[in-house]
């Protein structure tokens, strides 16, 4: 049975079912059992599964990450939750030196089957320390799996697969995706952790979107269609390992590539995609690939500055049209009362 569910509800269902199916699954993190339940994604889980399996933590993300590792390597299946990826940086040593390498450096005698959920902030003045999108940092670390599901149904299915995976999985969830809904199957199901997905077919150019930017790419593709450009849109979903084959297959058909990352361009995932596609499909490329993302400075807080910071559908459409050799200007999509620091008017901060 499928129902419309929000992103947070879909995640909550994945956690609830994992907790019910496997007594070794635990869920922990700051605020996990609190009334807001991490944007709704953990509400009620402690009541249903007990304080030993679903619990709040001290403000000690670094140690708790090591505790997650220690519990994982001895048999539990922990899911650790951070309300912002920015906070998780205090535990970066644990993730990079230990968790990512655990199985390898112990020759497979130990492993680290755990999931770390991290929310990527945006809007309402989250500013320099509450709206970073740091997938590139994790994407450079062998041993990790890194996923960024865009839709509620992928969020549920990928999180389910992540919890069952014997590899450590970093799951990055864009805050604004919590404001969208989708048809989500009720039963437990898995979506592969390493597959991109073509979400719109096209023939002139391949648009690869990362997380929330996939939605902006879809809007841009509609604008482009009106201008006579047929854009294929790929939802990246998996950041490490990258599903280059799906992208390459598309680019070999369209001859053109635009990657729209939800992060800084320089040294970002878009560079890896560009270079990896190039290495495989140099001869198919009709134009230089284009990378879009955030400018090369930290995120400012004022809405006046954030307005120029994030790529908008009309920006994506314009750059893409230029790549295809049919330069055009695009008028911004109608957005009513919504200002650019909100996904919709229901989002009124503060987080």
């Amino acid at each position: 049975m499928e129902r419309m569910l929000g992103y947070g509800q879909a995640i909550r269902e994945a956690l609830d079912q994992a907790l019910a199916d496997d007594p070794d699954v635990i869920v922990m993190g700051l605020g996990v059992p609190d009334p807001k339940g991490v944007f709704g994604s953990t509400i009620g889980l402690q009541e249903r599964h007990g304080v030993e399996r679903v619990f709040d933590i001290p403000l000690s993300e670094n140690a708790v990450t090591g505790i997650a590792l220690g519990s994982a390597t001895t048999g539990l299946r922990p899911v650790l939750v951070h309300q912002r990826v920015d906070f998780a940086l205090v535990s970066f040593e644990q993730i990079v030196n230990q968790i990512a390498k655990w199985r390898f450096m112990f020759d497979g005698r130990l492993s680290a089957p755990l999931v770390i959920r991290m929310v990527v902030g945006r809007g309402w003045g989250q500013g320099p320390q509450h709206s970073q999108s740091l997938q590139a940092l994790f994407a450079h670390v062998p041993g990790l799996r890194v996923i960024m599901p865009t839709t509620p149904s992928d969020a549920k299915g990928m999180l389910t697969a992540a919890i069952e995976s014997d590899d450590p999985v970093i799951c990055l969830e864009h805050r604004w995706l919590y404001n969208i809904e989708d048809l989500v199957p009720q039963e437990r199901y898995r979506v592969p952790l390493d597959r991109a997905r073509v979400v719109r077919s096209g023939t002139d150019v391949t648009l690869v979107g990362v997380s929330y930017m996939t939605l902006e790419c879809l809007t841009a593709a509609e604008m482009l269609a009106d201008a006579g450009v047929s854009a294929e849109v790929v939802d990246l979903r998996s950041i490490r390992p990258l599903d280059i084959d799906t992208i390459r297959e598309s680019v070999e058909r369209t001859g053109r590539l635009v990657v729209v990352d939800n992060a800084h361009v320089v040294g970002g995932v878009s560079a890896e995609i560009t270079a990896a596609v190039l290495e495989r499909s140099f001869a198919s490329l009709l134009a230089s690939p284009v990378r879009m993302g955030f400018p090369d400075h930290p995120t400012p807080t004022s809405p006046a500055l954030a307005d120029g910071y994030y790529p908008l559908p009309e920006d994506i459409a314009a750059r893409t049209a230029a790549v295809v050799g049919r330069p055009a200007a695009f008028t911004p999509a109608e957005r009513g009362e919504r200002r650019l620091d909100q996904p919709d008017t229901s989002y009124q901060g503060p987080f």
Partner: protein
Amino acid sequence: MDQSALRQDLLRSMLRIRMVEEAVADLYPEQEMRCPVHLSIGQEAPAAGVCSALANGDQVVSGHRSHAHYLARGGDLARMLAEFYGKATGCTGGLGGSMHLTDPEAGFLAATPIVGSSIPVGVGAALTARNRGEDRVVVVFLGDGAMETGILHESINFAVVHRLPVMFCCENNLYSVYSPMSVRQPPDRSIVEVAAGHGIRTWSGDGNDAEEVAGLAEDAVQAIRLGSGPAFLEFSTYRWREHCGPYYDNDLGYRTQEEFESWRDSDPIEILARREGWPDREQVALDIAEEIRAAVEFARSSPFPVSDSMRSTLVPSS
């Protein structure tokens, strides 16, 4: 300063913080201050008391809940509000917002909102003071939640080893967001106890009694200036409003209405007002109201920053 003058100062400082925060709470629903705000209503006394013990040249560092510290230290009100409104005239030019305040000239060095992360910054400022032979005390404000961060412990240890002129001031308001002490810290040890384990001198007191706070801070600052090394102070207090944002949130059920009311009944402003009398309260309130009105006017009427102006100068680029 005689005790009565001190009380008047403390009262004025607390009332100003209260009224500014209430103005923010009133204006916030207009949705023109589009950034998270962590209000200090109910816990004005530690800010006012501690800052009353500071001299020119002393420096303050804080975290996410920093408005009170900024104001008590003498940070520019109009530029703070302009910052909340995201304006070019804000104290960080619209780049930082409510969680990133600074007024270095006033001795408010910096606030940043990653919990624990700004604590060593204060220790580093004290290192500068030592190396340059400057007679300066640096205050680091933190919450009870920050006691759980490793970096707090590393910072205290370093300060003790180097006998640095830094004063850690912990406002224990019993909660970290909605999380009570019981899920975060052991029931049978106090916050000063864990600090004292590091060999730092500690003080603790009623964080709703600004006069007591001021006295303890005075003692600690004096000890620091005499070269006895760093100090750690804990003040028990309570946040009235929600963790972040303008509203009350007792309906959420993470704390009881009774607990809230009992703390509200020990309102730091009323406690001291009762003790002191405070005949000119009304006039003080009027003056503050006028100051706030003008500051809000300034903030609202200031221009927004322009995107391209900042990029090139503030970060290295080739």
